[in-house]
């Protein structure tokens, strides 16, 4: 198995698409967690070169279309581009329709852009873990720009966006009061605002609305730009690329940023380690640590028992 992990890691470094695809499958699937981790350990030293851009916003504002156009434009400027699109899966059946791809299908094959769709499946922690690993794989494979698309709702999405160097929030006119509600959640994380569908009525009002709110928010050295796009006519994309690239270089200079990112990476790995240890517990293994029958007889509450056994459950040497 280790040999297989090494082979795939070498394939990733060589930029072989099938190795990259297979590696992402392996990190997605808990059945192959061990080999997935071996691959990440192997390639990690080669990561950290790519600029990671998170693109988020409510459904229907044109995120996928923008990403298709943006990646073609970046490609034309000589950048190697990869895309990861995260789609929601049904909480009832776990199934999903990974529709983002259709919006950029034409750009992808024509321009040789790598794209992978991931579905969210119940567990939020699992999704951010596999998304981070997928980004690491693409980074080690030598992609210059990795674009991550999410709907930007909920903790899982915020965790995913935490790994991006630059976050662009996409809005469109016609969202009405919805725009106000969205702004509250997304205002804090945006480095760049995009107003898509500038050909529509109310586009300039939407743009001004955002600019006004930004004027009321205390700003740091990075002044958040608001970019208008007309994706049907491909207008505004040069401004968008300039804004994203400017923020990527701004973020690269910030060393505190790097430390906080690494802190989150380790925290995620720790959570996963703890979760897998806890999930692997059974009645008999827990009985090996503590006398469950006795605890039941003595009516000991579960919190006390958890405090008592947490050390042995989490201790890697046990």
């Amino acid at each position, binding site marked *: 198995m280790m040999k297989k992990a090494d082979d795939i890691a070498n394939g990733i470094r060589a930029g072989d698409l099938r190795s990259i695809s297979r590696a992402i499958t392996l990190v997605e699937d*808990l059945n192959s967690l061990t080999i997935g981790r071996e691959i990440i350990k192997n390639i990690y030293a080669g990561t950290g070169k790519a600029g990671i851009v998170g693109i988020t916003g409510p459904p229907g504002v044109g995120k996928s279309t923008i990403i298709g156009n943006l990646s073609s434009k970046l490609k034309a400027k000589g950048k190697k581009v990869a895309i990861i699109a995260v789609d929601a899966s049904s909480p009832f059946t776990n199934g*999903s329709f990974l529709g983002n791809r259709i919006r950029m299908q034409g750009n992808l*094959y024509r321009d040789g852009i790598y794209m992978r769709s991931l579905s969210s499946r119940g567990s939020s922690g699992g999704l951010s873990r596999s998304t981070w690993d997928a980004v690491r794989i693409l980074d080690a494979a030598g992609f210059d720009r990795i674009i991550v698309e999410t709907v930007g709702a909920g903790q899982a999405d915020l965790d995913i966006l935490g790994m991006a160097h630059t976050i662009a929030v996409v809005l469109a006119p016609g969202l009405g009061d919805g725009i106000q509600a969205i702004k509250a959640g997304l205002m804090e994380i945006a480095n760049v605002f995009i107003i898509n569908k500038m050909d529509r009525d109310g586009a300039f009002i939407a743009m001004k609305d955002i600019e006004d709110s930004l004027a009321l928010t205390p700003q740091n050295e990075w002044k958040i730009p608001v970019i208008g796009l007309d994706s049907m006519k491909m207008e505004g994309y040069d401004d968008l690329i300039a804004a994203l690239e400017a923020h990527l270089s701004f973020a690269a200079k910030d060393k505190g940023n790097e430390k906080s990112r690494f802190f989150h990476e380790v925290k995620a790995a720790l959570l996963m380690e703890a979760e897998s240890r806890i999930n692997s517990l059974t009645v008999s293994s827990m009985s090996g640590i503590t006398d469950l029958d006795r605890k039941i007889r003595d009516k000991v509450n579960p919190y006390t028992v958890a405090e008592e056994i947490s050390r042995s459950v989490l201790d890697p040497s046990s």
Partner: protein
Amino acid sequence: MVDGKSQSLFKDKPIKVLLAKPGIDGHDRGMFVLAKAFRDAGMDVLYAGLLPTPEEVIDTAVNEDVDVIALSLLNGAHLVVFRKVADLMKKKGIDDIAIVGGGTIPDSDKPKLEKIGITGNYGPGTPLKTIIDHITERAAEARSRKLGIA
């Protein structure tokens, strides 16, 4: 019915299936019916959009590392086009993505498709459950190969 083994195989990562009509055929109503049925059966569903070439279908299947490619044509070109997809897969040495077919396929053509590894080949009126069970069976083979446990 899906057996216990495949259920645990797909517990954490559902079956990933790519629906494609690789030819001059715009009748995708049936594809939408299947897309919804597969999603409701708990699968991750991708649709290649209208009029993809066989090359595009393979490119998407590889990038997304799907378990199954589900091809459909109603225009009678299945022997030529499905074969093209199967040949491209073979040329690239891909043996861990299964191909299934469907559409208006005469009974006499089915053995020819089966011979090149394209199974199912269900026509109009087939119960959705029959199709889902077949996809699950082929996906289990493909996934086991991907994970190296076949």
